[in-house]
């Protein structure tokens, strides 16, 4: 029953979409004063239809309706209710339906929130957004319909990948999608503003909330994905430069650049073309992300759908959008009246431009690392795998100038500033950071010359951002975000420098020495739980002044047959103790991996701080309005 509801409401939504495209196109060409009420009405009908369709899918998952192919392939009656629900967007078809849902809801919110804006601009945004929505609707209906039926109705489903049964992962895709899809509004509005010719400070003010919203969601989405990888995959790291991770990081760099550029546009009416280019690029990168992940073109741990017809559709659709936006950009460029204003080298404008250059550099590195293997394979058939060393070698040295710029750039004034003559404060901070770094680095096992300036500068930036809380030069939101960012860089560096790992095969009762610690495997208990068999081990890790017990687990699922390792992680403010074990064979030996990871928790905390800064800015912006 829910299959019919879901399916037909999608068709109704498609019809609405086609009507809206035609109608809004006609309306933009005849100068009308106010937005036709029908347009808003039909948009809300469309949104409701898509919501109905999404709810039908969730209901089908909850009641385990195996006449639905998506439910049959991805669910199982034994699965806990929470994961039945999250399973509805944990698969290819459902996740696209979620994309679509967020697209239409965001458009509806846009129409409600933009009443004070120019009518032509609103109509054009509606038009561009509907083009995207119809593309996704056709894609879903043609190649990935979540409401395909199975006959005869199977009595049991094929289960969901147990790796995906994790709370962080259950909410990670929707949050990430809010971020991705938010960029679609930025894309549509910037094209619309370009055509309507109202790119300027007031538009920047209007669009800034959308940039902030997408940026916050994207930041949290990436954070959740990273947390999932750390706790669930059991590889003992938070970032692997996996293509699927990179794909979410690329729009983030672009969006961060945009977030800063929009401020210049708002305050100084500068960088108009650059803002448009960034808006188009951000959305194209989000779409490419969907393409790369969903088409199966990448080899990655996140193995998703692998159906070439889907890939061809998304790829063609992506290029239609890109070529459309490039064409619109070129033919409307002259509408951008360049307002040449006095700007000097030493000014906030320049500082933000420098920030943008760095973001673009980071973006290019990640883009090359992700895309180049695909190109090479097509062009000469050779297979390469780009791993962490590539990214580290290219990104880390450039962190040094980046940290230097970030330490003074944000405090510069608009238009023209002088280089500060001499500040005792900063000198003291600099000396303090050298001192701190000295005590940290003499304890480091891995000694690299590069880590000296990096650690010194990251501490310097950290102290400077703390110091900034005591002056009134910038807004609180900016202070928090920048402080969060410097904390993030410092934590990542310390974590990389002081992490160490122990790896061995052990029997129950065996003891091994590692650095100044002794690791002992006390016992392994086997139990049957709900839908899996559990092997829970008990380890103790001792040194002179501490004693930790860790109980990692191995789960053997039957539906489908999968073995997963649940790492046990003891977190303190200073460090994480991470232990994961694996079954080798039946002779009583287990493969044990123990990792010591300093300041792990601060990586999460600092990322949360970064997004809190964004949230504050958003709240403040909305307060001003009323």
């Amino acid at each position, binding site marked *: 029953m829910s299959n019919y509801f879901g399916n037909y409401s999608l068709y109704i939504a498609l019809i609405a979409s086609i009507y809206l495209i035609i109608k809004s196109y006609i309306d933009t060409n005849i100068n009308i004063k106010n937005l036709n009420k029908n347009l808003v009405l039909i948009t809300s009908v469309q949104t409701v239809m898509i919501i109905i369709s999404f709810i039908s899918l969730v209901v089908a998952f909850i009641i385990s309706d195996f006449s639905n192919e998506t439910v049959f392939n991805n669910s199982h009656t034994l699965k806990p209710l929470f994961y039945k629900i999250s399973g509805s967007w944990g698969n290819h078809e459902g996740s696209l339906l979620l994309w679509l849902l967020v697209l239409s809801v965001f458009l509806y919110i846009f129409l409600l929130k933009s009443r004070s804006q120019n009518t032509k601009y609103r109509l054009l945004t509606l038009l561009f957004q509907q083009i995207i929505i119809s593309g996704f609707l056709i894609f879903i209906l043609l190649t990935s319909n979540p409401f395909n039926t199975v006959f005869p109705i199977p009595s049991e489903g094929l289960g969901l990948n147990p790796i995906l049964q994790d709370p962080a992962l259950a909410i990670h895709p929707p949050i990430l999608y809010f971020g991705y899809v938010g960029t679609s509004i930025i894309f549509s509005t910037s094209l619309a503003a370009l055509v309507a010719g109202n790119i300027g400070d007031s538009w920047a003010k209007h669009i800034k909330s959308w940039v902030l919203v997408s940026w916050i969601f994207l930041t949290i989405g990436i954070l959740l994905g990273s947390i999932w990888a750390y706790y669930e995959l059991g590889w003992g790291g938070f970032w692997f430069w996996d293509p699927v991770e990179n794909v979410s990081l690329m729009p983030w760099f672009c969006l961060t650049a945009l977030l800063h550029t929009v401020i210049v546009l708002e305050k100084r009416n500068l960088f108009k073309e650059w803002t448009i280019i960034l808006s188009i690029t951000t959305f194209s990168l989000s779409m490419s992300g969907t393409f790369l992940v969903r088409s199966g073109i990448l080899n990655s741990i996140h193995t998703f759908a692998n159906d070439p017809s889907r890939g061809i559709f998304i790829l063609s659709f992506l290029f239609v959008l890109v070529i459309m936006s490039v064409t619109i950009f070129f033919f409307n460029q002259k509408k951008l009246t360049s307002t040449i204003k006095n700007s000097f080298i030493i000014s906030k404008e320049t500082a933000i431009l420098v920030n943008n250059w760095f973001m673009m550099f980071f973006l290019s590195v990640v883009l090359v690392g992700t895309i180049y293997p695909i190109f090479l*394979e097509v062009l000469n058939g050779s297979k390469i795998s780009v791993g962490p060393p590539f990214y580290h070698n290219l990104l880390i040295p450039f962190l040094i100038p980046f940290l230097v710029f970030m330490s003074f750039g944000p405090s510069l004034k608009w238009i023209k500033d002088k280089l500060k003559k001499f500040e005792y404060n900063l000198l003291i901070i600099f000396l303090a950071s050298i001192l701190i770094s000295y005590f940290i680095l003499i304890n480091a096992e891995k000694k690299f010359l590069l880590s000296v300036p990096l650690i010194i500068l990251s501490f310097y930036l950290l102290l400077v951002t703390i110091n900034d809380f005591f002056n009134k030069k910038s807004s609180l939101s900016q202070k928090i975000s920048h402080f969060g960012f410097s904390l993030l860089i410092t934590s990542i560096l310390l974590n990389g420098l002081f992490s160490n790992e122990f790896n061995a095969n052990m029997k129950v009762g065996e003891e091994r020495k590692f650095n100044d610690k002794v690791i002992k495997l006390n016992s392994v208990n086997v139990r049957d739980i709900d839908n899996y068999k559990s092997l829970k081990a008990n380890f103790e890790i001792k040194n002179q002044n501490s004693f930790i017990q860790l109980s990692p687990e191995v789960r053997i699922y039957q539906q489908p047959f999968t073995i997963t390792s649940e790492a046990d992680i003891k977190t303190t403010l200073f460090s994480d103790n991470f232990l994961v074990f694996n079954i080798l064979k039946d002779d009583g030996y287990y493969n044990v991996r123990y990792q010591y990871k300093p300041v792990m928790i601060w990586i999460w905390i600092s990322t949360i701080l970064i997004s809190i800064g964004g949230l504050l800015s958003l709240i403040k912006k909305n307060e001003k309005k009323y």
Partner: protein
Amino acid sequence: MKKNIKFISLLLSLIIVFIILLKGLNVSKDYSNEKLNSKIDFSFKVKKLFNDEVINIEDLFNQEDLSVVNIWASWCAPCKDEHPNLMQLKDMNIKVVGINYKDNPKNAKNFLNLLGNPYSEIITDKDGTKSIEFGAIGVPETIVINGKTKSIIKKFIGPLSNENIIEIKSLINEKT
């Protein structure tokens, strides 16, 4: 005019990217057939890791049957990850010839003492040239060789997964 040239060149480069990605969709993710069927030159000599004995590479492989070759190094982290899987092959009585790639013999021996030795024979490849004879591009890599035709019938780049192990097992059993 200048703008048109810019626009057209941008459009053209976009189309090229589109075509490459489109082709990329159809590239098979498996390594098999034409490129791999090249013959291996079995006429060189190799040194064993444990007793420094020099032998003909030919003597290591079963002339009538399939052999599995694994290229590894103690410094290679993914090799550690695939190690339990190699041990599984040993338990299934599948002989694996190890090529120790650009490694320090002492570290290599320590590695095996710590994690167990899954190989029936191990030869050293101090400068990496022996591995090139097998068409390897990095570590770890696992190759299934047909001793009769002296050709590579299957190549696994990167650490072996559980599925790869099942595949190797079925390959070996098919032929025997």
